C-alpha cells in the first residue's frame, strides 16, 4: 500500500514538474531549469520496476510535448531517460550523489544529441542551466531522502 501511495506521489511530482517546465513557470534569469530531468534523475532510484519508471517518463513526455507528434528533441529526451534506468544497477543507493551525477551527464548528453552547437556557442547559458539542474536535483534528492527516513 505504501509503495502505491509513493508511486502516486511520484506521478503528481513528475506531472507538476512537466507542466511547470512546459508553461515556463520556473525561469531564472531567462533560463528554464530542466525540472523533469532533475526529478527523473532522483525518481530513477525510487522505482524498482521498469514499468513504473516507464509510466513516469511517458507522463513527463506528455506534459513536455509542445507539438502534435513527438518532436525529435523529446524522443531523444525519453530515450536518454529510459536508458539511464539500465545504469542504475551499477550504482549504490547514495541518491544525493548519483542523482547529481545523472543530472549532469544527462544534461550534457541531451544537448549533445539535440543541439551540440548550443553547448559551444552559448556555453554561459548551458553552464547556468546545468548549475540550476544540479541544484534542483539536490533539492529533490534531499526531499527523497527525507521522505524515506520518515
Amino acid at each position: 500500500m505504501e509503495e502505491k501511495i509513493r508511486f502516486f506521489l511520484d506521478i503528481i511530482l513528475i506531472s507538476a514538474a512537466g507542466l511547470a517546465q512546459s508553461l515556463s513557470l520556473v525561469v531564472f534569469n531567462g533560463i528554464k531549469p530542466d525540472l523533469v530531468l532533475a526529478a527523473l534523475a532522483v525518481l530513477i532510484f525510487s522505482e524498482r520496476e521498469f514499468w513504473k519508471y516507464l509510466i513516469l517518463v511517458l507522463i513527463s513526455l506528455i506534459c513536455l510535448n509542445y507539438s502534435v507528434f513527438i518532436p525529435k528533441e523529446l524522443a531523444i529526451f525519453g530515450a536518454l531517460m529510459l536508458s539511464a534506468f539500465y545504469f542504475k544497477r551499477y550504482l549504490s543507493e547514495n541518491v544525493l550523489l548519483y542523482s547529481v551525477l545523472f543530472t549532469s551527464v544527462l544534461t550534457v548528453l541531451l544537448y549533445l544529441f539535440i543541439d551540440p552547437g548550443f553547448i559551444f556557442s552559448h556555453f554561459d547559458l548551458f553552464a547556468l542551466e546545468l548549475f540550476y539542474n544540479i541544484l534542483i536535483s539536490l533539492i529533490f534528492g534531499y526531499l527523497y531522502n527525507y521522505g524515506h527516513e520518515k
Partner: protein
Amino acid sequence: MIFIRFAVIIVLLVALFNNNLIFVRNIFSSSLDAKNAIEKLQLENDSLKTELYIAENLSGKEINEGKWEYFYAKIFSSYPFNDQNLIGIANGETSGIKKDQAVAAAPGILLGQVIKTNKSISLVRTVFDKDFTAAVKIGEGKISALLKGGVSPTLEMIEKNKNIKNGDVVYNADQNYPYGFKLGEVQMIETKNTDTAGLFKKAFLKTDYNPASLEEVLVIKNFEALKK
C-alpha cells in the same frame, strides 16, 4: 495486473501522440491569472503608446492603413529546453494560420513568426530564440541595427558614430515582419565590440513584457512575409 499495466502504457502513448491535453494546461495556467492581469494591462498600455508613436513618427503605406487583422491564439506550451525559444499556440491551419505569418505580443508589438503549422497547432519562433534575426531601426534618428534573438536579445551592427541612448524605441524594419512594429527599447549600450574591430557598437533589447507570463498572442493574418 499485467493487462492493466499494459493498458495504462497504451493510454499514455495515445495521449502522447495526440497531445490533446490543452485543457489541462489551461486549468494549470489559469491559477496565475490574477498576477498576469496586471502585466497584461501594462502591455496594453504600452501597445497604445506604440500605436501613437508609429502614427506620430513613422511613415509608410502599411502603417498609415493600419488595417492589421489580428487573430488571438492561446499559448498552450513552450519549447521545454534552452537551446530554442518556441511557443506552441492552440490554433492551426483550420483557423487560417499559415507558416511565416508574423506574431505580436499585443497590437503593434512584434513577438515572432509562425514557423510550423498543422491543422490544430502552430509553432512560433520568438525574439528570444537564438535563430531569430531582424533588421531594425532605433529611435527618432532611425538608426539601423541588426536584432539577434536570444535569452537577452541584442542589437548589433550599430554604427559607432550614431547616437543612441537607453530607452530609445526599437522597431522593426525587416521585410519579413510588419514595418514599424515595436520590439522593445534600448538598454545597456556596449561600445567595446571586439568582434567588429571597433567599428560598431552593441546594445541589449529590453522588451515591455515578460515572455513567461504571456497567455495569448496575436497572429497577424493579413501580412505576407517576404519568401525566404
